[in-house]
């Protein structure tokens, strides 16, 4: 990294010397109107955060640092396994972790999360009742919902001739596709295709899904997590299994009509991601302050508008802070008939190894 920085800094100085500086135009601040105030004096303290990559607003962290006069160390992960493994090895010092429903469920069962002190989270009342008391945290003791979305199919309408409506279309497609590197998500699709429930009940079902995926995986060119947007953007693959937010980030960034996000007829995974405090967190008071800050409608809206995921914050709705384009998109704020097709992935400790082993075989057997 060192050389990269020397290189950039030297170049920066060079350019500063050569080009007249353009006057600093104040960036339009989406967080104008933010009323949240730091509840106590945390000056000089540090907060360590662990989140999915590409999963926060652009101003979220700098604004929080300013409001509370603290330093935030922001660390990211690309796949669920990395997060689960990291916490199971022993919390290396994170104060706040973000994770998806079944991961929260597993971490609660295994005792890796601290119960939250809701007296320190006055903004919790902003969260819609629809999103509290769900299967992964039935009593709502350990987690606060952050964003929600789906895992489905994105395709390039210029390259794929027929309209894509189903997973079968992808498996039969004669051209390069990419899969998300997330074992339970993709195996769930294999399970659907073989007529099994998306949450497997035994190892035979997993084996059936594995065999289906290997047999229909000839058109797979990449199995990745963070690079999917770029692979679609540069035309490397024509179709990809993607998170809804990433798909819409791709659509927004390209400023074109090339891409379409589809929730296949067979069904797709819906997830609710939430924020928790892991056991062994050093600064739980500041962690609570941060979680409360995330539930401020203006903060939540900026995040939602940046990463293009739906927000479980009802205050955001009432104040109409979501970009209309996002709010009115039926594939983000889903219609009831679409929701019927969706399923949650559930934590099943007895089958976790079988899924990972099947995945190991799948990723080494697909492709051409």
């Amino acid at each position, binding site marked *: 990294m060192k050389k990269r*920085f*020397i290189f950039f800094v030297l*170049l920066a100085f060079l350019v500063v010397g050569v080009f007249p500086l353009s006057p600093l135009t104040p*960036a339009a601040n989406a967080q104008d109107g933010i009323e949240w105030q730091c509840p106590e004096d945390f000056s000089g303290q540090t907060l360590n955060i662990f989140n999915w990559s590409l999963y926060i607003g652009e101003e979220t962290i700098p604004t929080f640092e300013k409001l509370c006069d603290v330093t935030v160390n922001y660390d990211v992960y690309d796949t669920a396994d990395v997060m689960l493994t990291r916490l199971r090895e022993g919390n290396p010092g994170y104060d706040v972790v973000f994770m998806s429903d079944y991961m929260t469920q597993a971490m609660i069962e295994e005792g890796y999360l601290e119960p939250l002190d809701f007296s320190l989270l006055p903004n919790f009342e902003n969260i819609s009742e629809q999103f509290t008391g769900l299967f992964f945290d039935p009593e709502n003791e350990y987690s606060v919902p952050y964003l929600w979305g789906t895992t489905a199919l994105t395709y390039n309408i210029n390259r794929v001739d027929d309209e894509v409506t189903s997973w079968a279309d992808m498996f039969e497609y004669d051209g390069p596709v990419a899969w998300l590197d997330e074992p339970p998500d993709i195996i769930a699709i294999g399970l659907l295709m073989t007529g099994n429930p998306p949450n497997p009940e035994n190892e035979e079902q997993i084996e059936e899904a594995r065999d289906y995926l290997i047999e229909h995986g000839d058109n797979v*060119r990449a199995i990745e997590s963070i690079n999917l947007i770029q692979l679609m953007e540069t035309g490397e693959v024509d179709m990809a299994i993607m998170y809804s937010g990433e798909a819409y980030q791709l659509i927004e960034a390209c400023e074109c009509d090339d891409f379409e996000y589809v929730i296949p007829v067979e069904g797709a995974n819906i997830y609710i991601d939430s924020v928790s405090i892991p056991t062994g967190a050093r600064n739980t008071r500041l962690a609570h302050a941060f979680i409360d800050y995330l539930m401020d409608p203006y903060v939540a809206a900026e995040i939602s508008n940046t990463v293009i995921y739906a927000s479980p914050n009802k205050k955001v709705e009432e104040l109409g802070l979501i970009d209309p384009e996002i709010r009115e998109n039926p594939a983000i704020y889903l219609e009831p008939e679409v929701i019927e097709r969706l399923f949650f992935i559930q934590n099943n400790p007895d089958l976790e190894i079988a899924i990972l082993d099947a995945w190991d075989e799948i990723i080494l057997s697909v492709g051409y």
Partner: protein
Amino acid sequence: MVNRHRYSLNGFLLALPTILWLLIFFFAPLWIVLQFSFYSRGPRNTIITDFTDENYVYVTNGLYWDVFERSFEIALYTTLICLFIGYPVAYFISTRRTNAVRQISLFLVVLPFWTNFIVRTYAWRLLLAKEGIINNTLLRLGIIDSPIEMLLTREAVILGLVYGYLPFMILPIYASLARFNFKLVEAGQDLGGNDFTTFRKVVFPLTLPGVLAGCILVFVPSIGSYVTPDMLGGVQGRMIGNLIARNFSGTGHWPRGAATSMILMGIVTALLLIYVIFLERPTAPNRNDTMKKRLGFLQQWLGIPYFNSVIDPIANTFSQVRLWFWLPDHIRLARDRVMRVIGGTILRLTVLSCYLFLWLPIIVLIVFSFNDSRSTSTWHGFSARWYNNIANNVVGGEAKFSTTEMLEAFEMSLRIGAIATIAATIIGTACALSLARGRY
């Protein structure tokens, strides 16, 4: 006698920091990895510490072994391509007349190396993509009708590795050639050898140590590489390093990852042992005898015929064949002159394309840092706004991190770099002194 004791004690004391360092930071972790490779995995990333060889059985069979074979192939091709590009370039540099030109040519090989490896590999992603710079250029020029699939292939990985490790081949060969006395070439020609024979019989054998060192320096990191196949390989180009990383940080199957690492280390160690015992030039006075003895041993036990015993009969046959085409002297001289011009042109073209190859990604990075858009494949006009963002300390919006943060990171890098340099110099100098002056 007293003197000798003092020497050996001093030698030991000087080597002590290195020995401790290796014990703590190399052998201890290695021991732990070895232990893990015989354990098995329980539910929820737990480790079951009962002895089992299931990981080795799994890794040496089926899918994992295929990836081992693939990695070996990729590393082998990388090494051969590096050799075929690297030797001419090293030859070209070492035969420049003035020292200044030699230094500059060498500097131009090393300079791209001072940029971060990941950034340079990323530049190849931009170049090789289906709607990337190379495909777009070829399409616009009408050379191809539809884009070529280059990224996410095994070939892309080989290209990335050749790019990354080419200087490791050029530098040792250059070092050999720089020591080489070119008067020996004249001697070879006086004895009737043409350019090719002189090269084969004189230049190449005498620079063989540099070639072998270069091959080792390219092959070893190539076979275990992780970043390049991760960024350029996709499903086809996955290498053993990716599987090891996946087992440790991803699926959390430490025992399997440990067994995979141990086998990879075993392969690399075996190759290095072959090199050290049989191929490295011994420094003993009766060098030739030692070499012959070792090579005889190698031939006998591994059934590998020595280089010359394969090449010589073939070359001799060819030289006899040549007698059939007897040519008058003036025609022969003219032919040699033409061949020399052609050879020289090929050499210059190889060198030129090698420099282009080394500099292309860097140029792409510099050019696109002035692009008036986030796009890294199409040009949207000149702009210095990315630099302005840095200069004006913009946070949020377009700038992912502020200049203050960047300067902090820069300061941290400098500090770590300085500490590492000082520590390495102290420990390394002590060890080098001990090796050179101590008596064992």
